[in-house]
């Protein structure tokens, strides 16, 4: 779908919920993928893609929204279209309280910076929301920001991460948060 929308460059910081998508994008010859060290890099990279005539997207977990705050301002200031796909943590059923503050604040934070925020709360809604966001961002359609459009994919779509160690104790050291 992202290559159908003409997206040429995708940066990502992995999330469990994005694993399959990242794998598929890596196999798509129409799209360059870049493994980012931190999410704000992806925002700047989208600006470069737009300058060169490409279309950029960034995939991240909701905690990554907090890592991009200042850089996201550039999308509005420079009116650069970009797609942000955010898989949510910290919602209903979250088993890791450390994920809650940024997860709860991610949407409002992006809105405060002028990003047009949409939400997909069921798996059936995801393809339509992402397709509309691409069309609106890059196709001259309805884009409240004139810059970035984010689609927040509810934790309910991805599923809640389990920390069940099978012995009632904390997660094994080294397991990803």
């Amino acid at each position, binding site marked *: 779908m992202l290559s159908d929308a003409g997206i040429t460059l995708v940066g990502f910081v992995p999330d469990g919920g994005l694993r399959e998508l990242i794998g598929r994008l890596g196999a798509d010859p129409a799209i360059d993928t870049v493994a980012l060290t931190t999410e704000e890099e992806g925002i700047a990279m989208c600006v470069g893609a737009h300058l*060169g005539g490409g279309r950029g997207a960034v995939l991240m977990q909701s905690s990554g929204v907090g890592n991009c705050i200042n850089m996201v301002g550039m999308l509005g200031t420079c009116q650069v279209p970009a797609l942000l796909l955010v898989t949510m943590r910290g919602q209903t059923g979250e088993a890791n309280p450390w994920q809650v503050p940024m997860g709860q604040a991610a949407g409002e934070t992006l809105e405060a910076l002028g990003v047009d925020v949409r939400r997909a709360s069921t798996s059936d809604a995801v393809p339509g929301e992402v397709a509309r966001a691409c069309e609106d961002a890059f196709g001259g359609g309805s884009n409240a920001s004139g810059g970035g459009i984010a689609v927040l994919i509810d934790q309910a779509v991805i599923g809640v991460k389990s920390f069940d160690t099978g012995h009632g104790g904390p997660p094994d050291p080294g397991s990803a948060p």
Partner: protein
Amino acid sequence: MTAGIDRRATTAALLADRHDAGLLVVAGLGAPAWDITAAGDHPLNFPLWGAMGGAAMVGLGLALTRPDRRVLVVTGDGEQLMGLTALPTIGAAAPSNLAIAVLDNEHYGETGGQPTATGSGTDLAAVAAACGFPTTLRVREGDDVPAGVDACRAAQGPVLVVFKVADDVPDLVVPPRDGPLLVERFRAALGV
């Protein structure tokens, strides 16, 4: 003032004959943005007025999107230190057409000259080399500027060259600050 090479002369050398080479230029905020403008405002300049730490990654996005063009990022030590995480990302992405010129005066020149970590041992060229950049260089003397310029303009990328410049603050020569204007004139000049 700390001794060092001249930032404006270095920038002018980096951008000489840029038109024939089709060079695309991104500048980090502050002095590097004024430096590239002092060398001659150009539609294929994208000077940042904010987004500190983002210049190298704007350059990566541009380099991957336009592999037919050489992309030069001109930035400062403070800006690149803030965007340090871009170096492993760029090292892994390995764009052969991207060069980063760091005008390293070891200070935050825009805010009163406070020291940066490059004056206390951090070597950005060594960091880039450790991140897999095939071409890295430190230029400390004026006589070595041409070698640094050649690396930025033609060597196998990604390239990072640190130019140890004096910490003087030359006259402000400011580019347009209207973001959409900077974006649209750049795209128009590229024909996209």
